């Protein structure tokens, strides 16, 4: 059974990851920071890396906690829920979407940290079957 830690950690990491990925796109950067604003090249790269990191960490958390099978299904469900939330927030409350992402990133990182990085890296806990 999926724990509260996995649920909260997986969702917050996926959400903040998607926000970073969307901000790397001109259209959504302008949604949040005002018409005509564009991210710089370095900024775009950093946002993409952060975004990918959020999604990968979310996947890692799900798989380590719930196994390859249930974990991947859970992760895909979380991606759908988070992306949908972002798509609905962007046109109506773009600044809120960003604020929520900052809070999410903090909560998500804290969850992973509390869960113990060593636990995630320990080979005995990786469910390979």
């Amino acid at each position: 059974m999926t724990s509260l830690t996995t649920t909260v950690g997986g969702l917050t990491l996926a959400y903040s990851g998607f926000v970073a990925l969307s901000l790397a796109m001109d259209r959504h950067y302008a949604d949040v920071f005002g018409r005509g604003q564009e991210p710089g090249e370095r900024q775009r790269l950093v946002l993409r890396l952060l975004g990918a990191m959020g999604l990968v960490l979310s996947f890692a958390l799900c798989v380590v906690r719930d196994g390859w099978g249930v974990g991947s299904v859970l992760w895909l469900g979380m991606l759908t829920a988070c992306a949908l939330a972002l798509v609905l927030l962007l046109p109506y409350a773009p600044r809120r979407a960003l604020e929520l992402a900052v809070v999410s990133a903090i909560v998500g990182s804290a969850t992973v940290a509390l869960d113990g990085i060593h636990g995630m890296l320990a080979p005995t806990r990786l469910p390979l079957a």
Partner: protein
Amino acid sequence: MKEGLRQCMAWLHTWAGLVAGWVLFVVFLTGTAAYFNAEITRWMQPELPAAGISLPPAQAVSMAQTRLAGQAAGAEQWTVLLPGGRNPDLSVSWRAPARDGQRFGRFQREILDPATGLPAEAKPRTTGGGNLLYRIHYDLHYMPAVWGRWIVGICSMFMLVAIISGVITHKKIFADFFTFRPKKGQRSWLDFHNALSVLALPYHLMITYTGLVIFMFMYMPFGITSSYGQNQQQVFYDELYNRAQPVPASAGAPPLGTLAPLQSVLAQAEQAWGPGQVRSLSVQRAGTTDTVVTATRQYGHSVSRNGQLRFDGSGRPLDTDSARGNATAVHATLYALHEGHFAGWPLRWLFFLAGIVGTAMVATGLILWTVKRRPRQAKAGKTHFGHGLVECLNIGTIVGLPIGMAVYFWANRLLPIELDMRRNWEAHAMFIAWGLTLLYAVARPVMRGWRETLWAASALYLLLPLLNAVTTRRHLGVSLPAGDWFMAGFDLTMLAIGASLGYAAWTLGRRKPVAAAATARKARAAAPSATPSPAQEPA
């Protein structure tokens, strides 16, 4: 050539989606509800005790064994279902030996009162429960199940075609990944339809494909009949599922043996899986020398493999899971993904959400068909019969079915308990309400039809918790403090659904002038001499 392919696929997507759309909407919505079929049934039988009674498994097992030994001594099979996961009750069931000419013996089930170990006194009302919605999902209703399965199967095939052609038609899946532009008429509908489709694409593909795989032997029986012969399909299934041949009835009564207390089996299984991890114990051929006791693990640790341990009548372990072939494992995984039994609460809600997204995807697709064609209808000055038909069927299905389902729940509370064929009348109430919504849609102008039926649906859902409060003593004020999440969860979900439908109705009422103005602007720009027409109200 590229452009030609895309146009071709767009045409295919439009018409495959339209032809199968209404059936698919029904399949998606009832299937989504079926993720909570047990919880819905629980709400529909308020006589049963509140969930959340804690009963130590060892005590539950000994209680169940006492009851079964007293009631079902000669039975072929016993099952003890322990409280835990989505099952709030301790229940026992047994199957009597098959008599001559029967394939299976009589099956009986009792929910035990944790205080007394006897069957719970309150007799729950007869209801179709969540299972009726689950059956409609693949059997439809008012027709032989086989017809329903064929119709649903053909429509699922259309769905698969629509998904694939839709992906090809969509020009900018990644560029538009997060894009939704509201208040822009047809543009907004298309954005929303795309977002719903793309963001849950893994789910849509999975659920459609696995749905077809579940009935693949029915849709494509030719491989089996050609290798096993026309009337030997049962042999195929027995081999596929590794079923042991049943003991022939002519063998006479097997020699008597004794059954050790099931607690020892429970203890061994809990040692292997952890406390509270045993979902059920079942006993084959209790009281004989070849008794087999099977412990089944709680769902959730694996997608398709539901761990099992086998013991003999004295509680000694037998062989563990027999190995499965790869094909069987793939089939089991696809089946499990569709049914979602492995999903605990967080994942179950995500499945539910994805189901709602799928339902909304079908609905927005159907609506988009009409939104795209409304300006042409308005220009022509009269509504084409086909267009009007689609508009009415859209309202009649997209709002009609939710209204029908709400009325199903109302009927569950309002029909007299002792009514003959009560279960059937609950279903009739659902379909009557659905039919009336369709008739109403025919009688009203399109936009008013949408708004008014949406308001009605919203009211029906918002008032359900109130109805529950009036007709039972399990309303939110009681169920929430008591932690009775089966009851409270249902009521809260109904409030959320009612609020969403109300929001839709309200938005539709507010949006009208904006859309009309936009259409008028467009009409002026296109042809300065043309008079702007009330495009939104083709009578």
